[in-house]
């Protein structure tokens, strides 16, 4: 994917010291909440794109509903981030008025939608990750975050189950469906590892009992996905030659700018509009 020049550029962007001594607790707390909220917000935006494009009308509803759950999670998380920040930014300001480099979602969720199998592969990984994440965060020292997690975990279980059902059906289906499901898994694989990376804000949050180390969730996430793939007669893709990284630090792929342009342009064209 990248030439060596690109890699150098990316390394510089990702490896630059971001945790200066003055990165205070509030900043890290806000960043942690944004990483959770931005994952949900950006994936909700991508899932919304499926409306009228899914293979059947029931899936239009399903993907829209999963997106709606995630949008609800994002609203709560961004509101909480704004509260902790204490600068008067509400959920709308954080969702609509931040620029690309300020978004802290993983690159997995911003990737353009592929075919339905790619989406189910992405949802299986993301929802499996969210299940483990929200289970742990129900005991967060940030009580609001714990409350959000208690609600969100029930939703994530349902999302994971939905993706599981489809991966089983497609993997253990016809020759064509199996091939395409396997291709879907291959397509998202380079973006999976980033979910388990311990970024600065997560390390701080885990130390404070506010959050959880993403790497501590990886085994359980892998276990679930592996079990599904085995049952579905699919193969876990080989370790990718490169993998996405940098999203937690605001370094995104090309798709992100287009996604934000579409998501934000109405809010930015009509500042403060209400109805």
């Amino acid at each position: 994917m990248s030439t060596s020049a690109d890699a150098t550029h990316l390394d510089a962007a990702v490896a630059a010291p971001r945790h200066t001594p003055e990165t205070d607790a509030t900043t890290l707390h806000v960043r942690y909440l944004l990483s959770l909220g931005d994952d949900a917000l950006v994936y909700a935006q991508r899932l919304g794109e499926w409306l009228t494009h899914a293979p059947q009308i029931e899936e239009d509803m399903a993907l829209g509903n999963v997106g709606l759950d995630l949008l609800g999670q994002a609203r709560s998380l961004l509101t909480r981030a704004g509260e902790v920040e204490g600068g008067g930014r509400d959920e709308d300001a954080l969702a609509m008025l931040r620029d690309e480099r300020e978004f802290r979602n993983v690159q997995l969720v911003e990737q353009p939608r592929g075919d339905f199998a790619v989406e189910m592969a992405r949802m299986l990984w993301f929802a499996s990750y969210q299940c483990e994440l929200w289970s742990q965060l129900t005991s967060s020292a940030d009580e609001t975050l714990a409350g959000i997690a208690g609600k969100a975990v029930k939703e994530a279980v349902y999302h994971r189950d939905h993706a599981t059902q489809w991966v089983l059906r497609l993997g253990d289906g016809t020759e064509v469906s199996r091939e395409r499901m396997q291709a879907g898994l291959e397509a998202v694989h380079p973006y999976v590892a980033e979910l388990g990376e311990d970024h600065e804000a997560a390390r701080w949050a885990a130390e404070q009992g506010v959050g959880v180390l993403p790497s501590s969730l990886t085994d359980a996430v892998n276990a679930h996905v592996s079990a599904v793939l085995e049952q579905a007669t699919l193969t876990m893709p080989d370790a990718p030659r490169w993998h996405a990284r940098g999203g937690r630090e605001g370094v995104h792929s090309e798709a992100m700018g287009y996604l934000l342009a579409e998501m934000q342009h109405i809010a930015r064209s009509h500042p403060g509009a209400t109805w």
Partner: protein
Amino acid sequence: MQSPRGLRPPCTPRPRGAAPLTDDLLARVEREVRLVPDPEIPVITIDDLGVIRNVERTGPGLRVTITPTYSGCPAMSAMEDAVVAVGRRAGVPVEVVTRLAPAWTTDWMSEQGRTALRRFGIAPPTGERAHATGPVGLTLHRRVVVCPHCGSEDTEEVARFGSTACKALRRCRSCREPFDEFKTI
């Protein structure tokens, strides 16, 4: 959203000469608040749905604590507006606060609410809820859900996501009618 709504000032100041806030008046307003229908499923009240966690008397009126069903449920803000409107009509300031924990569960739905759903053609929540941890069922779904129209147990899932976040779509193999099922969470 939790806090913006939670911090919203009580609706309107009480006008001069308004009826005094007697226990009778407050009790009547509380009754009416509990009878507010779900905007999406108007046969069930928000009290029977289990969304109302508490109603208490405050200095200037009532404080109603609610717990949302789903994070992104668009009906939640309609419910809040309806609750505030009940107070406004009676001249009693009603403040709505949102409590997230413990998370809402279909266990909080009353028997009366379940009966109302069934009569309306929606199968009330039944069966086990899914868990985030522990062994995960990897077989395709086979659950028994009773048809609210004819009572047959021979029904099948058509779609796991129905017309709202809280429902799935099923169909009865006996009477051939489609119906919504309230998901167990």
